[in-house]
């Protein structure tokens, strides 16, 4: 079993991390709450605190901040690091973690060759962590001050118009849509269904037709609506990882060999420019 040091943004996150880390923790983990400083400073403090409490495994949340602090701390400690872990285990002195690989098409099992080890836990795993947990909060041991010339000038909340992670129904489109002006068609269908609009990675990241908050996939939103309708989306694993937990998946694609049909409950091989208006009519009538 390992001596675990939790690094968390707040008490709630620390509690969830303690639950996920329970299978490897010999006794209640120590927990260091973020001091809110720059990641360079946080990482140095985390590494120093880890030494101070004699931790051999550091566990943090796989938030963007969590990942960068964990990666820097791992480098300071000359440690292996697995980000976005779904679960952790230890048997026969060997520490292992599972994480999605290749965008979620498979779950890989990774072994740490040595300790200390650094892990960040996928936010989805933390959200699902239930039960009781205990940890002992420790105060930070200041790390070496590298004296970096960098300052936070401004921090403001992102103005988001949509939160797909909470949507009950999503109508999503991909490259099958020929031009930006045609998004109106998708919007009409979504409105009829009371659904939010989602899109694949190329639409948001390459074509930039929609802001990134509409993007479903491993670098976008991980969604689990009751109904997910994929229009003209081929079904790259990038996308699959973002919607595989939807209750019912519908795919419309003109290519009958598109991988999306393998992930779908209901598939229609056809031109979305014909099927979408037909669907609107079927819903209306």
């Amino acid at each position, binding site marked *: 079993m390992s001596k675990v040091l939790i690094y968390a943004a707040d008490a709630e996150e620390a509690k969830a991390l303690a639950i996920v880390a329970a299978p490897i923790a010999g006794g209640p983990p120590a927990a260091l709450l973020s001091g809110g400083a720059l*990641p*360079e400073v946080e*990482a140095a403090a985390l590494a120093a605190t880890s030494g101070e409490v004699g931790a051999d495994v550091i566990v943090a949340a796989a938030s*963007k901040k969590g*990942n*960068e602090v964990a*990666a*820097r701390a*791992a*480098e300071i400690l000359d*440690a*292996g*690091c697995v*980000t*976005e872990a779904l679960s952790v285990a230890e048997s026969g002195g060997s520490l*292992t973690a599972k994480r*999605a*690989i*290749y*965008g979620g*098409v*498979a*779950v*890989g099992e*990774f*072994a*740490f*060759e*040595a300790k200390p080890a650094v892990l960040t836990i996928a936010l989805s795993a933390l959200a699902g962590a239930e039960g009781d947990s205990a940890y002992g909060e420790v105060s930070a041991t200041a790390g070496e001050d590298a004296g*970096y*010339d*960098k300052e*936070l*000038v*401004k*921090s403001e*909340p*992102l103005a988001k118009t949509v939160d797909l992670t909470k949507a009950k129904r999503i109508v999503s489109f991909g490259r099958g849509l020929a031009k930006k002006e045609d998004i109106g068609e998708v919007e009409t269908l979504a409105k009829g269904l009371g659904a939010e609009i989602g899109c694949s990675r190329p639409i948001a*990241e*390459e074509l*930039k037709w929609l802001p990134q908050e509409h993007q479903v996939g*491993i*670098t976008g939103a991980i969604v689990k609506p009751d*109904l997910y309708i994929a229009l003209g989306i081929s079904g*790259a*694993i*990038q996308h699959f990882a973002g919607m*595989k937990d939807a*209750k*019912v*998946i*519908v795919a419309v694609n003109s290519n009958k060999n598109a991988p999306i049909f393998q992930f*779908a*409950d*209901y*598939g229609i091989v*056809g031109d979305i420019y014909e*099927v979408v208006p*037909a669907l609107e009519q*079927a819903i209306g009538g």
Partner: protein
Amino acid sequence: MHIVVCVKHVVDSTEIHVDKKTNELVLRGLSTKINDYDKNAVEEAVKLKKELGATVSLVTIGPRDAQKTLKEALAMGADDAYLLQISPRQQLDTAQASLILSKMIEKLEPVDLVLCGEVSEDGYNSQTGARIAERLHLPHVSYVTKLSAQDGGYVAESTLEDTAETLKGATPALLTISSAINVPRLPTAIQIMKVRTSRIKNVKLADLGLDDSVLETPKVKMLGYEIPEQERKNIMIDGTASEAAASLVKYLQEEKVM
């Protein structure tokens, strides 16, 4: 100003799929290419080159085929490229890759900015940038969605889950670049072909003061993988568009999701 961009040669992740018979991932015979996210980093570097007269160097670790990735980035406008060649079967963990890349960057000093893509589309580890920064004792900004730089300093906007941060700092620094920042220029196949392979300089581990053992000592090893069960109905609906639409609506009403 000297900018180094770390790029990665990856399998085209959109082609990875599961072989239904063996229930194993099909990874062989897939096409390989430059990591999409690194293109945004190269684009940002090339923009700064135009603005400030910067020199842009590329570094990568990969098989011989990684020349393709470097050629594409050179065709985008980078000036020179360095390849540390490894066997196509060689896997590196993030600690090994960061160590080697850091040494490659050190060789190119003085360096003002190191740019990386925010993530690689094969590993999705989001570690290498931050690790290199720590090893090279550089401050870093991750997930950069807006960047302005001049000699001696930069202002970068970093987009996190719920907040946008603006950071200001002095160079040298490392930045990981988000795909939201720009639309990378697309060199044509002919432009890429015209890039002479001789522009790519081969780097050996010994040149970096490392020996081959660095390739043999990962800190994290993949033991294996499992394919999660997909329990989907896979019902294909036939008929004309309106027939199919009508049947689908019926199914969805039965499922009580409409």
